């Protein structure tokens, strides 16, 4: 067990290093220099100072080592376009907003997705099954930006107490969280349905029933606890996919999150900010995946059993 966790941590570190290196190589293979993109001409001496300020006058290998060292201290440098703000400050401002949106969406998906899937499996080929499968097919097919703009058009502009855009109060977060949650919710529901159907056919369910346990207890204690494992196993990837959704959702609802900064930095070619946000997001996501994987081995009763056997 400890060996497995150590191995996963090593893999995570290698992955983060790979992301940093890829980001560095890509950003430095951009033709031209980052300050010349605007139409105005920058005087020679100012350009030199700028290059010096961002360390761009040093050889690439030195820059790379500097970059690695800085990231090891969680210092992502200064933004090239946002005046006198460091990337760290921008992340500190934007990430809590994005994280709150993401966490709310994941909670919604985790409450309703598996429940929908379980109900579908329990009423297989009956009305509840069809209804929940229709919901999940819509959820998988309709991109979150479509859903988000529909919400703005049909709900936010009609219902008074739900604002169209902005951030600050809970009511601002309702629609974006739901729009963001529907895709993972649908995936969870589909996965839960098939794994629940498989579990319900197992012998231990029959055993539990024949012992005279109530139907509710059989479902809650024996079926759902086992059927939910595949859902947990894709949780890491789902969280990672949520980031892409949050970029567009934040744009639609005008939420001042990290995705908003990322989108504008992409548009402005603010290279230090792009690099910083990419590496930061990659670190967060890889850490999440690591946590989920470790948690999975802890909650899977079969893995626990083999551990006790040794």
């Amino acid at each position, binding site marked *: 067990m400890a060996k497995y966790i150590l191995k996963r941590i090593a*893999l*995570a570190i*290698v*992955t983060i290093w*790979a*992301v940093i290196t*890829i*980001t560095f190589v*890509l*950003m430095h*293979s*951009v033709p031209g220099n980052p300050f010349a*993109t605007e139409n105005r001409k920058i005087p020679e001496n100012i350009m030199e100072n700028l290059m010096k300020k961002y360390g761009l006058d040093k050889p690439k290998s030195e820059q790379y080592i500097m970059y690695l060292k800085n990231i090891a201290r969680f210092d992502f440098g200064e933004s090239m376009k946002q005046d006198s703000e460091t990337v760290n400050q921008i992340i500190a401002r934007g990430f809590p907003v994005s994280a709150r949106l993401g966490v709310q969406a994941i909670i919604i998906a985790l409450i309703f997705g598996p429940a929908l899937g379980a109900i579908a499996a329990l009423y*297989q*080929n009956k009305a509840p099954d069809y209804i929940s499968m229709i919901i999940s*097919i*819509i959820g*998988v*097919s*309709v*991109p979150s*930006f*479509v859903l988000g*703009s*529909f919400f*703005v*058009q049909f709900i936010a502009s009609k219902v008074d107490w739900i604002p169209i855009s902005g951030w600050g109060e809970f009511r601002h977060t309702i629609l974006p969280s739901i729009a963001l949650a529907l895709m993972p919710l649908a995936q969870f529901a589909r996965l839960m349905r098939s794994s629940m*159907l498989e579990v319900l056919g197992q012998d231990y369910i029959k055993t539990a029933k024949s012992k005279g346990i109530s139907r509710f207890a059989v479902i809650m204690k024996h079926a759902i606890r086992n059927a939910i494992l595949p859902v947990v196993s894709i949780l890491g990837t789902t969280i*990672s*996919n949520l*980031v*892409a*959704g949050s*970029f*567009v959702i934040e*744009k*639609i609802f005008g939420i001042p999150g990290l995705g908003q900064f*990322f*989108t504008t930095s*992409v*548009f402005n*070619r603010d290279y230090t900010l*792009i690099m910083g946000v*990419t590496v930061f*997001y*990659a670190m967060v*996501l*890889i850490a999440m*995946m690591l946590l989920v994987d470790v948690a999975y081995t802890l909650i899977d009763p079969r893995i626990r059993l083999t551990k006790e056997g040794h």
Partner: protein
Amino acid sequence: MDHTAYTKDMFEKVKRDEYHADRITRPTISYWADVWRRLKMNKLAMTGLVILIIIFIMSILGPYISKFDYREQDWDKINLRPNKEYWFGTDELGRDLFSRAWLGTRYSLLIGVAAALIDFGIGILYGGIAGMASPRLDAIMMRIAEVVYSIPYMLVVVLISVVFSDAGSGTSMFVLILAMTITGWVPMANLVRGQVLALKEYEYSLASESLGASKGWILRKHIIPNSFGPILVNVTLTVPRAIFAEATLGFMGLGLQVPKPSLGTLANDGLAVMPIGIFYQILIPSILISFIMFSFNVLGDGLRDALDPRLRQ
């Protein structure tokens, strides 16, 4: 009673008819015909297939049906609602949205299918080699794939598009496809490797090997054809992922180079005019994207069920 009426010589042994015993009374159904037969019974998957065929045909013919070019701007006719002349209305530059929508569908489909096919090519090569190689090389190759797969997909897609495109004017089709395939091949490689590891233990692989066939031959002639089913399902489900990624990029302003439309950039343009009360411009590309995603998803699910009868509930 006269028992003598039936003598032994009156009976004759019926000859065993070898021909009739061995005759196959029903027509033989090939594996794929059987899959098709099962797929046809799946109403949802067939709906998806029909929608896909219609969208596919329209993506080829659509831009020619409309009498307006997709680039043609008419400043007197901006933001028109759908009407008799402009079936899907016009955008804020007065361009015909009917031809733009179908052209956008064409580019989105092209990107999706091309990305899926490239993933398929790389996946088969990488997974095939890893599966056939020595366990040591296999372990190394799989570690590398694991690292590549842990890199968040969308971040790489965005990063590549940023680096290889000019500010403001969008991304070329080649770069978009590159961005989507650079980490997208890993699931396919994993799938192929799993298939190879399982199938190379089968008797027909052993027989081929004992007849002196090379590893490449066994891979090409026995393993890949026999794992074609799951691979096909995977390709079908990769297309919507790539289309979704392209749409998201387009929505972030990293879509295809202007004036070429894609469904993502059309939706992005539509979002820009939503605050002034124009909703149909985002509605049309949204519906098209949703229908494409829906069709590929249900078709992929249907194929998976049809290929593996055990999974059918």
